[in-house]
């Protein structure tokens, strides 16, 4: 398979780095800046970035990837064997703890917004309600819900407040929102990579932690979403 004529001519054209001339890295005279505020929001910038992917394949590219995926160790998981199925979790930080929940229950990750407190609520775990695109969702304190200490957390989160996110999770029966200090993203792992929860993670009650997942030089606590949502329902009652 070789590139078609049309593709080659497209690649020959140099990329016009307008963001360096008239955009945010230039004199900011581009009329589109008024609409998009920053070049990274502009479709012209996006189209140029996408063109980087239209480059021809490097030498040995196909062979290298073929070797990578042929090896079950490096090639990631398929659905083939249920014992070792592929799973994805969203990894987030709450205080000093990295925690994870299955990707499928995540509905939305958004900027933090004002939490309106509910009158006559004494439960520490329920903070109030938040407005997510016109829908009112009960916002809980995940730390209070699963009982981890937020003291050390506040010192660190003061440094990195910009990473705080409002997370909405749920299923058909109900949804909940909570604030996390940072969302890392989605982590793919194999079931066999999960480790039992070590007894030393005393801070996270084992009722919610079902497994520990080694990640970089840290350990991520995988939470049980069913128990979490059940605990949330109980604190609402």
């Amino acid at each position, binding site marked *: *398979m*070789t590139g078609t004529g049309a593709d080659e001519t497209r690649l020959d054209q140099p990329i016009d780095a307008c963001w360096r001339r008239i955009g945010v890295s230039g004199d900011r005279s581009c009329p589109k800046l008024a609409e998009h505020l920053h070049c990274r929001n502009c479709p012209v910038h996006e189209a140029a970035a*996408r063109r980087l992917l239209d480059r021809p*394949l490097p030498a040995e590219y*196909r062979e290298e990837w073929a070797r990578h995926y*042929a*090896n079950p160790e490096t090639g*990631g998981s398929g659905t083939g064997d249920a014992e070792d199925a592929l799973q994805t979790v969203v990894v987030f930080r709450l205080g000093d703890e990295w925690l994870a929940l299955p990707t499928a229950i995540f509905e939305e990750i958004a900027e933090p917004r004002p939490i309106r407190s509910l009158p006559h609520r004494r439960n520490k775990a329920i903070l109030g309600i938040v407005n997510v695109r016109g829908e009112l969702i009960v916002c809980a304190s995940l730390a209070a819900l699963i009982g981890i200490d937020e003291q050390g957390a506040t010192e660190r989160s003061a440094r990195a407040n910009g990473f705080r996110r409002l997370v909405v999770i749920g299923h058909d029966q109900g949804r909940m929102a909570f604030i996390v200090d940072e969302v890392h993203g989605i982590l793919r792992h194999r079931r066999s990579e999960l480790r039992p929860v070590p007894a030393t993670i005393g801070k996270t009650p084992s009722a919610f932690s079902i497994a520990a997942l080694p990640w970089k030089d840290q350990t991520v606590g995988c939470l049980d979403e069913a128990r979490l949502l059940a605990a949330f329902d109980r604190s609402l009652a």
Partner: protein
Amino acid sequence: MLFLMFSLGTDRYVLDAGEVEAILPLMATKALPGAPRGVVGAINYRGRPVPLIDLNVLTLGRPAAAVLSTRIILVRYPAADGDIHLLGLIAERATETIERAASDFVASGVEAGIPAYLGPVASDARGLIQRVRTERLLPADIRDILFRRAETD
């Protein structure tokens, strides 16, 4: 719903992201001599042979461009016997996902005579996007040949 977008020629098409097992880079393939048109070979995915189809060959009659944005979309393909097989689709510019409601897709108005795998269309600022029905991508005879071959390995 989340859709994976790719290109055939200059037009844009989408697949339901729920059908997609993984997106892989282009890789070296084992040729399958005598395979039907569009079937360019098989790849080794974690030790499993997965047949590979070049969508451009199947629909436009020319192979996909060998560039970084051309990738292999690994879809779960329902076989006649109810099993789910993996099928690799080589598609150009498989680099974008879009979030659309299923109801955004309406009948294109030209349903008769077009290939069965082409579904309803949705519009956006750049034009029309057509849904591809994976399960009808292969004619029944090719599908049977392919997965019989995969099963006897």
